[in-house]
């Protein structure tokens, strides 16, 4: 190779030795914003093609374009490109939060109307189309019992399954298990409901009930656990894989057996992540309507016994009230939806705090 010095290399468009660059002044930034939104308003109202929403959207796009042009004039290409990407990322973030904020706002504003003691103290038993009262007490009980039982079934199975896949599983069998877990992730909830209907309700439950098939909250819990299982297995598996190998070896080197290493070192290290996965699964299960409708049947009255007879759940309650002809029903549906979101939120926060208490803070 011939002699090639630094100066022969293709330049990066910088003057060597100059580390200062011009910044776009704030006044110019604001001026661009004013022009952009003014122009947007003029276009939208001038042609009469929309309302303030379109003004905001169009104004924002014009503002970004204008800012990019102004920045590339004043600050140079590299800085302008940086600015463009940053504003895109911020815009995407705001766009992603908007629907969520909108959902929360709608829930609260419409749900607050029936947020009274009656709602949490009474069921829909003997509530006719003309009665303004009624509540979701029975549905709250149903949701808590069904999701609780489903969690008790799915969490140990899922976590142990994930431990098998990560720590012990080798070769064909583990790959097969992993494949079927992936397939299970895509099962529509109605299919899980049908499975439990044909298997549990129609075949198994008659044994306990003098030959008669019987709906129950427990059957709904079974269907929900089928839905929760793959989520828990996959998220736990990913979290366990993130635990560094040297940590396991460190425990082995102390003469700690493998099962104790998993129980006392690996799982506690991955616990916050495992809890997040479990909470996602719980949130999904709490929002399912179809399986509960299929195998628990839904009910208007309070039923504390998950093993016997029809039960409702909050999601099913929302579905039924939203489709009800009574003029008082929509308000009940909104409040039930708000209650459901609140329960999931409280559970998530509680679980996170529990998981954090176990691990030390730096």
């Amino acid at each position, binding site marked *: 190779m011939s002699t090639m010095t630094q100066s022969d290399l293709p330049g990066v468009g910088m003057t060597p030795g100059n580390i200062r660059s011009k910044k776009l002044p704030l006044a110019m930034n604001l001026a661009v914003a004013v022009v952009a939104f003014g122009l947007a308003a003029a276009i939208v109202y001038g042609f009469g093609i929309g309302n303030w929403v379109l003004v905001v959207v169009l104004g924002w796009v014009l503002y970004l374009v204008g800012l990019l042009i102004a920045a590339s004039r004043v600050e140079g290409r590299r800085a302008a490109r940086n600015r463009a990407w940053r504003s895109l990322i911020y815009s995407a973030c705001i766009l992603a939060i908007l629907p969520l904020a909108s959902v929360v706002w709608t829930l609260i504003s419409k749900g607050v109307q029936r947020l009274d003691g009656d709602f949490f103290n009474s069921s829909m038993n003997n509530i006719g189309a003309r009665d303004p009262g009624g509540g979701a007490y029975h549905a709250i009980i149903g949701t808590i019992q069904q999701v609780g039982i489903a969690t008790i079934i799915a969490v140990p199975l899922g976590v142990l399954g994930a431990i098998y896949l990560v720590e012990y599983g*080798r070769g064909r069998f583990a790959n097969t298990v992993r494949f079927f877990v992936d397939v299970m992730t895509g099962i529509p909830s109605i299919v899980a409901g049908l499975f439990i209907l044909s298997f549990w309700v129609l075949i198994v439950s008659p044994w306990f009930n003098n030959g008669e098939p019987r709906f129950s909250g427990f059957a709904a819990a079974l269907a929900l656990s089928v839905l929760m299982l793959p989520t828990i297995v996959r998220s736990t598996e990913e979290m366990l894989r993130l635990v*560094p190998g*040297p*940590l*396991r*070896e*460190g*425990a*082995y*080197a*102390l*003469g*700690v*057996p493998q099962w*104790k*290493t998993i129980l*006392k*070192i690996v799982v*506690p*290290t991955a*616990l916050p992540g495992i809890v997040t996965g479990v909470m996602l699964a719980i949130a999904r299960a709490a929002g399912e309507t179809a399986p509960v409708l299929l195998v628990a049947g839904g009910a208007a009255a309070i039923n504390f016994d998950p093993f016997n007879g029809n039960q409702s759940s909050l999601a099913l309650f929302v579905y039924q009230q939203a489709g009800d002809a009574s003029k008082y029903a929509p308000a009940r549906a909104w409040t039930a939806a708000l209650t459901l979101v609140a329960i999931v939120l409280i559970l998530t926060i509680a679980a996170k705090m529990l998981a954090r208490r*176990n*691990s*030390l*803070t*730096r």
Partner: protein
Amino acid sequence: MAKRIEASNVTSYYGSFKAIDSISMTVEPKSITALIGPSGCGKSTFLRSINRMHEVLPGARIEGRLTIDDQNIYDADVDVTAVRRMIGMVFQRPNPFPTMSIYENVVAGLKLNGVKKKSHLDDAAEASLRSANLWEEVKDRLGRPGAGLSGGQQQRLCIARTIAVEPQVVLMDEPCSALDPISTLAIEDLMFKLKDRFTIIIVTHNMQQAARVSDKTGFFSIDKTGDPGRLIEYDDTQKIFSNPTQKKTEDYITGRFG
């Protein structure tokens, strides 16, 4: 109660790849033995064979005999966890358990092996931390997380954790490679102190370190990439560094190769 280690024709594989080929050496009790050599020559593999840590990796296996006071640790009826309790190991990167405090880290080996008595654990924690020259620095914050210590302190914490279970042999896999010179010195001092009680084998890339701390030195090398590592020369450290018998050893030590 330190033990003598005798390796005869130890050959280790990763799947079909032969990592080391018929290593034979004898390590005397209460001595420090250094293993040196270029990267990828099988020093660490050999070290991990001594406490059966090699087989943790999938597909890894071993041939030959490795005896600790005339017991072959690769016999079929040997309990792996008992071997590892007898032969402790300190790793290249400090690996304190992140969910545990300093105190819990030190007594982890005892606690997870069924020791429950609080007074016993407390005594063991203090004694091990003192032996690891860490007690004065951490005695007021034993409840703080082990991962919050500096790198050198973390490594000494891992040494304290290792010696808390009273092993007879301590293996060290480049224990100072992630540390600054002052922490390195602290750990070398510590090794001299521990030599009275334990047999120590250390893998190191730092030849000055090998010359400073060890009684005996083994030089490993490979002919070319893909070949298994071999033990080229094993002798008193004094002799290896002043008058090696093998040309390869001399080249490596004088810096002409590797």
